[in-house]
């Protein structure tokens, strides 16, 4: 097997795109996991569709390049089939906060041991700049007719907190080292984990300066304090001008879905015998 972690596929992301930082952060985390003894074959990355999804072509590990919005549903099936796998989902903001929001909420509700890394550039890139649920209200793109008023965003972290998400972090692609640490922490966390990753879109929402002026790491924040997490998540509503906290914002250990729901598998002979028994008992 090719030991390199990057494939030969031609990279087609725009110059300066935040996806490069996420790709390399994930790659570094995976290399670290393997060094710690996690078999390379047991790591699976599931991507949605959008600019972020191309990461499936670029990373040389087992990948499932799935559908727009459905990565978490696919990943849930994979994790249930084999709980020994390390399942990482890369999703976009249009992908998982719009098209696939239900799957995100339910992954949090179930607490399945999957990590979702949201490439949150706050705009649809590949379809050329339409607004997403986290676009600034003043951002209109080409799909909102002239003269129509703003459509303000929602705060995805608040949605996740009230859906029971047991690990919530926010990273930023221009804080690469911290982002790598957050992704590693999220993957190691037993249960559903989300890393909302702010990134610029070099073509449609190039607001690096806006982020650089506002991001900060809160001192003394206790991620196990739900009320504190709610306060810190509520500071910035993905729209206005407010400080943007980075880091692990909330963390709580809970029983995982695959632990609660997966039954002990039987072999085919046992199943055939059961069918025979059921038929006998019906006489």
């Amino acid at each position, binding site marked *: 097997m090719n030991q390199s972690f990057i494939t030969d596929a031609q990279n087609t992301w725009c110059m300066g795109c935040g996806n490069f930082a996420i790709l390399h952060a994930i790659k570094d985390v995976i290399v670290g996991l393997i060094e710690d003894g996690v078999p390379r074959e047991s790591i699976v990355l599931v991507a949605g569709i959008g600019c972020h999804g191309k990461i499936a072509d670029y990373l040389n590990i087992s990948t*499932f*390049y799935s559908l727009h919005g459905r990565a978490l549903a696919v990943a849930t099936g994979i994790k249930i089939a084999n709980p020994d796998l390390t399942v990482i989902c890369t999703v976009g903001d249009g992908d998982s906060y719009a098209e696939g929001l239900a799957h995100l909420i339910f992954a949090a509700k179930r607490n399945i041991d999957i990590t979702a890394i949201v490439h949150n550039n706050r705009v649809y890139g590949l379809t050329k700049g339409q607004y997403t649920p986290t676009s600034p209200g003043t951002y209109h793109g080409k799909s909102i007719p002239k003269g129509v008023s703003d459509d303000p965003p929602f705060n995805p972290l608040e949605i996740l907190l009230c859906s029971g998400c047991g690990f919530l972090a926010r990273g930023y692609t221009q804080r690469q080292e911290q982002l790598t640490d957050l992704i590693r922490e999220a993957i190691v966390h037993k249960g559903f984990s989300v890393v909302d990753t702010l990134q610029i879109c070099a073509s449609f929402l190039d607001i690096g300066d806006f982020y650089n002026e506002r991001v900060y790491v809160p001192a003394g924040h206790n991620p196990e304090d739900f009320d504190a997490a709610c306060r810190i998540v509520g500071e910035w509503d993905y729209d206005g001008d407010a400080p943007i906290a980075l880091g692990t914002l909330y963390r709580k250990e809970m029983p995982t879905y695959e632990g609660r729901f997966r039954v002990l598998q039987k072999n085919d002979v046992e199943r055939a015998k059961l069918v025979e028994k059921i038929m006998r008992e*019906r006489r």
Partner: protein
Amino acid sequence: MADYSVLIGGKAGDGINRAGQVIAKVFTRLGFYCYIYYDYPSLIRGGHNFSVVRIADHPIGGRRDGIDVLLALDATTLKQHRSSARKDAVVLYNADLIHNAEGTAVSLQSIVTEEGGSPVMANTCIIAAFCKSIGIGWDYVEEILRSEVPHEIEKNLRVARRGYAAVDIEKHPSFLVSEEPVGEKILMTGNEGVALGLVAAGLDGYVAYPMSPSTGILHYIAEIAEEAGITVIQPESEIAAMNMTVGMAYGGFRAATGTAGGGFNLMTEGLSLAAMAELPVTVILAQRVGPSTGTPTYTAQADLHYAIHAGNGEFPRFIFAPGDAAQAYECAGHALRLSWKYQVPSIILTDKTLAESTYTVEPSNLPDSIPAQPMNDRNLEGLYERYIDAEDGVSPYAIPGDIGVTIKVNSKTHNPDGISTDTAEGVARCTEKQMRKLPAMRQEISDLRPVIIYGNPDAEICILCWGSNAQLCREVAGHLGIKAVQPLALWPFPAGEVSDAVGDSWMVISVEDNYTGQLAELARNHGIRVDLHIPKYDGRPHTIDGLMELLWGMVA
């Protein structure tokens, strides 16, 4: 020939379905063939539910006109069904709700209240009264109730004893020779047949969102899941159900999902994903009246063309359409097995009549085993590429965790290594690779002998039918001395076999529960002549007699 129909009716919540099952059990144990048609509106309490239990000394799979025994738990039952009861029918009714009617009055509620039972036990009471009225001994009634009533058996037996004592023997059908259990016949719904067939073929996971008339599969697999070692999940939507099923297949689970037309609409996105990613999934599409929400608890066969074409793009798939519980068992097993063998989606097309009717099954007539398809029977040596080209289009299947392999699957058009491509050569190659599976898939269907001929094989008049209509048509063909042809697999369409079975019939008539004649059109597209179509689109299955009359009108 013995052939009796017992109708029991009441309100939703009266346990009518269960009561029908118990009555059928009384006769199945005695060696008779039974068929139960269950009719109910989409509500939880109230309304009018009824079960027709047909009992015969020969194989049956549909309703007849005419009721020999009418068991009325409420006034609506008597009002709606009195006219279809024969002149000499045994009529038992609930004297607490119905006054001055013809037949035998049993005060069901009063008995239940006096014995301290719960209202639903009225059905036990009337079943016992019915058994007495046709001369079945108490010991046998008690034996059946003990085996069939899951809760509060002693109280149920007290209620039953009172019902039994409340009537005299009215009629002793000549076919009731002995109360000794004989034979090995069992009762099974179409949904249970599907579920057991999947289990027998090695099902590991079942993911489904509730939707009539497919929900029975979800309930039944959940009931046996622990013992069968099957992971059962009810997710947030049919979209999630299909995508989780696809994910399970990637992870190494033989997985299936089930729904009705409306839910299948939501699944088509994931069905297309399974096709492009070449991941095996099995989906049960239990048809009901459409379009849209339609009539949730009534039958239709209007999704055949939809099943054939569902999902964007062109891709190979298997479609099976069983016609009774035994066929459901067999087809479900083959659908799962072949889906894995060819790494394509398979669809089991049922209908409400099949899904929720109860059939007599003779286990010795079922296949001994449906061998589960091994996860991987091909060589994984060397550099692994998920979609490596193979002569028959089927690449070696590996699952994450297999040593030394990187498995890249993709919803996008891809190269053999699973990485996206949009070159002209790559796009064409991807399609050709998938389509190359078709010749072997066609042969696989042929090997299963997918077309059944009923009745007189040399007759000049031939009925073409599918799904639950097949058993009706089998009986009708027998009575009229004509031929009936049922394709069990509908895709790849076994055109040669259907054509041979139809032969040089002078007249070919399709019988389908739809308006347009979907099987007829499919047959015509394959060069098979179909002269007439008998449509039915009112949500109710034909009765044997009704269908015979229609056919007489056409062929006489």
